[in-house]
């Protein structure tokens, strides 16, 4: 089968070649995205309104932040199953710090916000650091490490919060980072933060030694080892960055819901992986760009908003998501064959 495609690609017309080149670098996703968008629009005309488009983009931006985090680890041929629960722990911990300094917004609000965000970043970096040290320095299978971390972080999140949401966050947080707020009169805060993270990630991945060595680690770990790079440190840093970006996502989610949520994170792992892989970040490591994650995040959001508008049962949506993940992995495989 792969041979056939190979022959076609080399002897086909110019248009065919161009299309194959397009699919090989971006996957089938942009096309699927357009069809899906129009398809939902046919079923439910409300779907095509500007307000809904804005809604989709806002929802996608939370997801894109988390999927970017996941991408850093996927690029090293790793995996982070603990991303979702790290979001929970960070959300709860930073909310508790903010509430204890300025309960109900009474007190030094700016100090509370700074301390809360600082806590979030520290908790995120710590979780990532533990993951990274176990993976990079002790050579333990990343699945197992992050699976264990999932148990640990879940336990921590439910223990420190007692299993209940943390209420009484200062309004300032919700007004500056929440969904209702706007920056400069037009930009929604989650979208703004998402764009900043995307630009920074793009820069780090393409123009720094660390970024390039992450790609090398994923595509050829032996070469990275022999090449004299501090590969263990870079590998660890990928996990630290992943959890830290996830922590930023957690702050955004906390600001959106207005509470510290101990149980939001559970489903986010699957979503973040689905978005990254559906977008074209390879599970075999070394492949994937920021733009892929943007496409993937948009796809998952279009699907979930569309299914909500079409009033599809939320449990059934979970089934659809599972099929999207399996389908995405299948397409990932297909893309590899086209390129060969």
């Amino acid at each position, binding site marked *: 089968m792969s041979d056939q495609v190979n022959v076609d690609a080399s002897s086909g017309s110019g248009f065919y070649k161009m299309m194959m080149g397009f699919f090989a670098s971006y996957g089938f996703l942009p096309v699927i995205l357009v069809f899906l968008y129009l398809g939902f629009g046919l079923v439910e005309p409300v779907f095509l309104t500007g307000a809904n488009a804005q809604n989709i983009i806002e929802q996608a931006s939370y997801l894109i932040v988390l999927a970017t985090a996941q991408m850093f680890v996927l690029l090293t041929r790793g995996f982070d199953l603990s991303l979702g629960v790290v979001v929970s722990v960070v959300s709860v911990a930073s909310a508790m710090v903010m509430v204890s300094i300025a309960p109900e917004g009474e007190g030094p609000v700016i100090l509370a916000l700074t301390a809360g965000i600082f806590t979030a970043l520290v908790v995120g970096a710590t979780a990532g650091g533990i993951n990274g040290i176990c993976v990079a320095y002790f050579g333990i299978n990343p699945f*197992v490490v992050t699976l264990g*971390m999932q*148990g640990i972080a879940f*336990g921590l999140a439910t223990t420190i919060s007692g299993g209940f949401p943390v209420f009484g966050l200062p309004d300032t947080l919700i007004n500056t980072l929440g969904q209702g707020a706007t920056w400069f009169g037009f930009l929604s805060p989650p979208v703004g933060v998402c764009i900043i993270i995307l630009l920074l990630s793009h820069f780090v991945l393409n123009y720094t030694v660390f970024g390039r060595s992450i790609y090398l680690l994923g595509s050829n770990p032996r070469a990275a080892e022999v090449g004299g790079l501090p590969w263990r440190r870079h590998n660890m840093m990928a996990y630290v960055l992943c959890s830290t970006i996830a922590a930023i996502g957690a702050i955004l989610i906390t600001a959106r819901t207005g509470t510290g949520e101990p149980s939001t994170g559970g489903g986010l792992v699957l979503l973040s*992986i689905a978005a990254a892989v559906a977008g074209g970040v390879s599970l075999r490591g070394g492949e994937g760009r920021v733009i892929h994650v943007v496409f993937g995040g948009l796809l998952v959001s279009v699907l979930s908003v569309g299914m909500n508008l079409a009033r599809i049962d939320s449990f059934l949506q*979970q089934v659809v998501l*599972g099929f999207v993940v*399996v389908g995405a*992995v299948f397409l990932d*495989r297909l893309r590899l064959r086209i390129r060969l």
Partner: protein
Amino acid sequence: MRGNTIMEKILTPIHKAESRQSAVMRRLMVLGLLPLLMIVLCIVLGMIEPKFLRSANLINVLRNASFLMLIASGQMMVLIIGGFDLSIGAVVALTSVTTALSMNALIAIFPDSYLLVISLGVLAGLGAGAAVGLLNGFVVALMKVSPFMVTLGTLSIASGLALYMTQGVPVYGMPDLFTRDFGRMRIFNLPVVIYLTAAMLILIWWMMNHTKFGKYMYAIGSNEHAARVSGVKVTFYIVATYTACSMVAALTGILLTARVGSGEAGLGATLMMESIAAAVIGGVSLRGGVGRVEMVALGALFLALVTNAMNLLRVDSKLQTIVIGVVIILAVGIETYQSKRVKR
């Protein structure tokens, strides 16, 4: 080139002998450490909390351990062929729901023949498990994609289906013969689950050690390419292994359903992590090719003991997931460390 092969010929026996020696050491350490740890744990627990040594509690530990042993031996089979099954807990939930719903539907059609209803319900549950296993196996074997991703996807599919069919509400109304008489049946004062698990473990042990299927599993796990070149139908056996694993998980789900007395979509949520933990504590390698069912059973018993100890000492159930997380990382860490030393 020639020099290389000669060098290899000279070096190989030494290397082999060395690794065999350390393999023996390792097996001794694993075999010796785990039971020793358990005995110490039992003695300490008995001193701190006399309730632990009551027969009711010990039977309780054994019963909880047998559910875990069963599902962990399923996980072990997949780990041995170099795979991974994250969907195992969701299969338990899906089986539980399917069994309960189909029994309820069938009892309306055949109100008098309980045995028929129960056996058809059990078959439906096993069928649901087999379907998930086949999906896992086919996608992994034919498309050669990472089993983690595939089973993460089927995890979402299976638990989503279970929740959708019940809308998250437990399903009651199964025949009393199933829930009361079978679910709480005791033979010589021991729950029937313990006997069933023992029988299944012996069956799996026999399969792993004395059948072609078992031998091929180890072969595929240690070197898939070599197995394929030697004429093993690798694709077929990978599909078979994933299906067997899901069927064992389905059996666990049916037994748990009988025990709980209702079909629940939340059943087995923790079993995925615990099954991996038990298998890894029992010395199953995540790189495939290594693992024995009797050690996995010991690992499951150890985990059940630790959980029981935490319950008796009134450790918060939320903290218990932390302990299990740490145990998983530690167990695999030790295994990784040992295998690195063997390599040197």
